[in-house]
């Protein structure tokens, strides 16, 4: 099959994949030879060979346009095609980030309005669009927490609390901001264990970061008490807003008592994930943190938009002003949905998740048997007893042409299967998934071998991760053919 070779294999001296213009000015003298490169060992391929190679590879991939993609915590909703066209308009894609402000008023207006919309949607006071992805927004949020306490002369607060169900970026971001970590347990209902929080919430705690709904897909009914406790003890409350799809257009983080929240435009706001980016992770804050926001923000004075830096900004965290191309798509999304449309999004997302929960409950262990929000977390415990693991269930789903859910996260659920259908899937699609999951549950009992050896229909079968890590083969090497 065509994809089993790499670029050097189709490379032949003298080929090229596009035509280029000749030099139209008199050539200059070259710099001293010790600055110059002797050999540039890049492949040489013709345009047709290049296109066939990459198109063959595209066919080995599974995207939202291929089929159902219920990857929990990732909100793999459909990405409207015309949003792509908007971001590609010359007036958006071909403008330089350092052009004079007067020449980019349209782009600045879009950014300003997006700041305003996100501020409104989260019920906060101000928004910075600079962070490049969710984890980058967490980083910005936590640096603001640090700056806030330092600004008040409170030097003791060097710890961030997070829950045992939190996403891996939460502790990693806290460490990048120089904090120590404290972990708060979840109780048997999947809520924050109030006793654990009570005892951990001391005067060394700078903030609690709490994903809401939690990564178990559950809304903590004691949310307001948690917020009160944290603030009473002088801490701040930060949200990992990755799960906003659960209550978009219905609930505001500000009204839940949060001091900051980072959003993932590449989840909730329908911009495509690109196989691992580009994303955009704006951070929205209450008034107390507004002066610390990452620079720059866009402000409006009279009819003119311009970049400004907040008074006590944590500074620059990226090259320019964020992933503008992604912002264009999120902006188009908000404008096409409106307030009522966004509320319907979360309604359908939650309806779809609860439907899957009810239909799959007889077949898979449900560790928290209560109404879920936009996603539901099952455990493969029942199948594990038969020697079938969650990884086997996931791999078998691939044979049905379905993308598996998130597996083995959150860490507190044994053999976790985290399913997030999103609102853009129809009952028909969900029913097909449910049927596949039922058959897999039956095979786990009656024919486990078919699960252990899955997948069978994919371009490759199960891959040897251990070998990959033990003898890292991370690149090809290409020796020049000796042709000058």
């Amino acid at each position: 099959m065509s994809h089993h070779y790499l670029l050097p294999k189709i490379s032949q001296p003298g080929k090229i994949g596009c035509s280029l213009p000749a030099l139209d000015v008199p050539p200059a003298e070259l710099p001293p030879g010790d600055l110059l490169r002797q050999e540039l060992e890049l492949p040489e391929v013709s345009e047709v060979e290049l296109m066939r190679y990459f198109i063959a590879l595209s066919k080995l991939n599974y995207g939202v346009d291929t089929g159902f993609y219920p990857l929990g915590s990732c909100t793999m909703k459909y990405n409207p095609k015309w949003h792509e066209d908007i971001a590609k308009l010359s007036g958006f894609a071909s403008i330089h980030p350092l052009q004079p402000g007067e020449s980019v008023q349209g782009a600045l207006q879009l950014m300003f309005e997006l700041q305003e919309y996100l501020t409104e949607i989260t019920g906060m006071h101000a928004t910075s669009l600079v962070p490049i992805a969710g984890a980058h927004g967490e980083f910005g949020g936590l640096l603001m927490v640090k700056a806030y306490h330092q600004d008040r002369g409170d030097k003791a607060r060097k710890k961030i609390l997070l829950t045992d169900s939190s996403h891996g970026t939460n502790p990693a971001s806290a460490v990048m901001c120089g904090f120590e970590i404290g972990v708060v347990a979840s109780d048997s209902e999947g809520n924050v264990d109030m006793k654990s929080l009570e005892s951990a919430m001391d005067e060394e705690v700078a903030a609690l970061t709490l994903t809401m709904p939690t990564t178990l897909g559950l809304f903590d009914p004691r949310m307001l008490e948690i917020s009160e406790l944290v603030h009473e003890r002088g801490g701040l409350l930060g949200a990992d807003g990755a799960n906003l799809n659960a209550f978009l257009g219905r609930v505001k983080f500000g009204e839940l008592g949060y001091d900051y929240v980072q959003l993932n435009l590449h989840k909730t706001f329908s911009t495509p994930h690109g196989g691992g980016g580009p994303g955009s992770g704006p951070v929205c804050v209450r008034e107390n943190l507004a002066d610390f926001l990452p620079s720059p923000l866009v402000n409006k004075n009279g009819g003119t938009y311009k970049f400004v830096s907040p008074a006590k900004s944590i500074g620059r965290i990226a090259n320019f002003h964020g992933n503008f191309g992604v912002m264009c798509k999120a902006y188009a999304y908000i404008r096409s949905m409106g307030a009522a449309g966004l509320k319907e999004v979360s309604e359908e997302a939650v309806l779809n998740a609860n439907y899957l929960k009810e239909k799959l409950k007889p077949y898979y262990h449900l560790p928290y048997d209560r109404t879920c929000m936009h996603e539901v977390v099952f455990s493969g415990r029942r199948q594990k007893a038969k020697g079938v693991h969650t990884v086997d269930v996931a791999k078998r789903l691939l044979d049905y042409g379905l993308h598996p859910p998130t597996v083995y996260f959150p860490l507190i659920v044994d053999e976790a299967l985290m399913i997030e259908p999103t609102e853009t899937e129809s009952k028909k699609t969900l029913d097909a998934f449910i049927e596949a999951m039922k058959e897999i549950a039956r095979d786990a009992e009656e024919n486990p071998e078919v699960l252990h050896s899955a997948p069978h229909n994919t371009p490759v079968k199960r891959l040897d991760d251990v070998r990959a890590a033990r003898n890292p083969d991370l690149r090809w090497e290409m020796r020049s053919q000796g042709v000058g």
Partner: protein
Amino acid sequence: MPSPYLPNTDADRRTMLREIGVGSIDELFEDIPEKVRHAEFKLPRPLSELELKKELSQLAGCNANLDNYACFLGAGSYRHFIPSTVEHVIGRSEFYTAYTPYQAEASQGTLQTTYEYQSLVCQLTGMEVSNAGMYDCSTAAAEAAIMACIITKRRKVAVSTTVNPTYRDVIGTYVKGRSLSIETIELGSTLSSDCACLVVQQPNFLGYLEEMEAHAQKAHDIGALFVAIVDPISLGMFKPPGQYGADVAVADGQPLGNPVSFGGPGLGIFACRREYLRQMPGRIVGRTVDVDGRPGYVMTLVTREQYIRRERATSNICTSEALMALAAAVYLATLGRKGLKHVAELCYHKAHYAAKRIAELKGYSLVFSKPFFREFAVRCPVAPSQINRALFNKGIIGGLDISGMIDNAMLLCVTEMNTKQEIDKLVEILRGF
């Protein structure tokens, strides 16, 4: 009108509610305290695809775009020719609507192209290993500095004054976050022995080429790492970091097939010596075999990463810039050995033609007499802002006003996109001051 993105019908909804055993969708939200469950949202009235396309095209039309204006602005974001192959590959929705490749068997397209990207970056930079990409050049440089602190167990990073000021700011934000310190140093001065690394940019922010071998030596003499920030297009003709002693090379991959897009998305290229592989931040793809012995690709060395290692991860990075890395791979493969060299040479010769003609004008001079690639600083007879206004009125976006650093100076950038005609027109307008 029904929404094109919410495919359930009313009948579907009724069936589903019945199966769940609730009377209304509202009941599903009852865990949320009543008093915060019904927030009001003030957003503009929704519009259709047709209406919004029209409105947003008009908004885009309010910007002076580089398809209509000649551009001599660089300073970290560069307009280069993007062959159509790039758009047609990254426009495949199998690529752009996929998530991070957690399920390898369904993601061989993303994984194999990432392996190609890593290989091409190594070939281009002359470094031994590359990760799958980071946010942008500034965060890649910041993470390189932090990696150097971890490797050397030192707490201070030294950054040259000639590094792009925004990169310096971002490195500062990151290292201070970790309670480490940053020192900005003149390259001629001595390097204190407690530095974890020396960060130098090639060509530097002001456009001219640094003596990288000597700086690498200086860093190595005190046991520090040498971090080179490079320009990927320049590597078409100039010596790669792997050949002058860089331990880590970072770059912005935007010029490799990605539009300027008002500054983002960019792409942080991060490559280093193999011995630092296990301290490297970011995703890494490796080649392996499946149970039948067929070659295939997986994300590997994942015990460095946040989703496995949490607070002990080498970085918090999760979603990165995978699609931009794919664009860079397609770009490098399209141009290949001859094409990239040619593009670099076009930039070089056109920039030197422009510099020579401007230096001949009365009142103008080049600030530095050192070798440069495609950017150079010019001292002007009047404030650069005044010149830029005149240029703009004649359809040209001028250089970056750096009069804050050097009196009346402007940083000009010339790429293969600038025709001789454009350069001559620029020179004629400058002559008028």
